[in-house]
């Protein structure tokens, strides 16, 4: 027997190991001065965060006269606290931060008469009853509204709520006679 720790919990880090990055959202308020946005993004990159998107709401001022900015980033869960701390240390006003906003993402495909079964109502009901946010929709309907079409949805659910969200989608789809191609979540990629 070697003295190596072979217990799965204590795996030594190898390439591809470690905690998988997860998406997070932070909402910041910036003073309307040049260079403010760049100054706010630097602590994120420096602390191991990977920027996914920046929604810079120019023209929409907060009651205090600041510009709200929503930043989606990706980082290992254990790094997130460090990023928020670094932002605050750099004098950036962090209004809301947390993984709970974005939690877990799950991709699925709906198949059927999507247009006639009112896709926007389907999406609305998924958000309502599945307690999830539809973050992305791609529709493929090459034959117009006449034939079967497909839509790929990306849902963001609170941590641990993915199974419940998928069950809700299944119910709504069954009611509208749509098929759901669900993700296989347990599989090792």
């Amino acid at each position, binding site marked *: 027997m070697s003295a190596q720790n072979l217990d799965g919990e204590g795996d030594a880090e190898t390439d591809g190991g470690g905690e998988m990055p997860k998406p997070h959202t932070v909402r910041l308020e910036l003073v309307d001065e040049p260079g403010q946005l760049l100054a706010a993004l630097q602590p994120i990159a420096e602390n191991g965060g990977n920027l996914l998107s920046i929604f810079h709401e120019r023209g929409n001022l907060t009651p205090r006269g600041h510009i709200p900015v929503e930043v989606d980033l990706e980082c290992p869960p254990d790094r997130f606290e460090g990023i928020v701390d670094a932002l605050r240390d750099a004098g950036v006003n962090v209004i809301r931060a947390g993984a709970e906003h974005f939690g877990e993402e799950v*991709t699925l495909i709906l198949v*059927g008469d999507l247009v006639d079964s009112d896709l926007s109502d389907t999406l609305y009901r998924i958000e309502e009853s599945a307690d999830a946010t539809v973050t992305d929709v791609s529709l493929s309907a090459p034959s117009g509204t006449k034939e*079967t079409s497909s839509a*790929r949805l990306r849902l963001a659910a609170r941590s641990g709520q993915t199974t419940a969200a998928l069950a809700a989608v299944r119910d709504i789809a069954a009611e509208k006679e749509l098929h759901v191609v*669900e*993700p296989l979540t*347990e599989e090792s990629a």
Partner: protein
Amino acid sequence: MSFRLAVLGAGAVGGSVLDLADTYGHEVVAFADSASAAIDPDGLDSQSVRARKEREGVVGDGDPTAVFDTDYDVLVEATPTTLGDAEPGFSHVERALLDDRHVVLANKGPVAERYGDLRALEAESEGRVQFEATVGGAIPVLSTISDLGAGHVTAARGVLNGTANFILSRMAAEGLDYEHVLAEAQDLGVAEADPTFDVDGIDAALKFVILANVLSDEATEYRLDDAGVEGIRNVPGTALDLAAEDGRTVRLIGEATADGVRVAPRLVPKGSTLAVTGTQNIVQLETQHAGQLNISGRGAGGPETATAVLSDVSRLE
């Protein structure tokens, strides 16, 4: 040890068992299709039996039931899988076990639909029942579970229908629609003229029901009716396109877990372990203490399935 085999079912699997038995040190003393039987206590010559079947449509002069009166050690049940009461396969197995002979099944019916009855008969018999060939053709799935101990395997999932997998992976690769690829698969002999069993997920579901029966270790008995089954007919090319755009693909995935049996088209990451292509099959076992084990290979075909049958025969020694 050399066994004398009685083979029921003269299709691709039965025929290959007849061809390959001697390479495993066994001999076939009786061989029957639904209408005729060839019997020779000194061992049948595979070529002459096969030639007669081709020439005259019968394998020999005997009546199929005469098989049970020969002096055989192991019954190889390779007649077509039937649902519900799993007949006539189940009666063949019953007869052999009552006569205290061993049984090796390639027919999924008795194991998927009447597992409890089968085990009860086995318990009363000197003979044993083996059925590696019913799950994943040549892939040693059941023997791996048996080696690990069923209680140490918490789940089995994977792709166990080559026809459905061929259709999905070809649709994804070529951007072709279902009907087109199905016709192509039928031309290639990958899909049968009536592809219902394969494309509607029934064949895969039977295999995962068998896995669930083995994993539950007789605590719960599963039948096809207990499985959630969805086939691939409702997966259009557009769904595969949308999956591909996102680095994913769709496969007909079966699962046998503590929650039961489910077979459905599922999104999996492109190039991931379970996203096998063509007629390839794969089973992923979730173990209690050793993580995941993946076993893949050819899940169908005469010589492939006969390989599993003959390995089972050798396990009876």
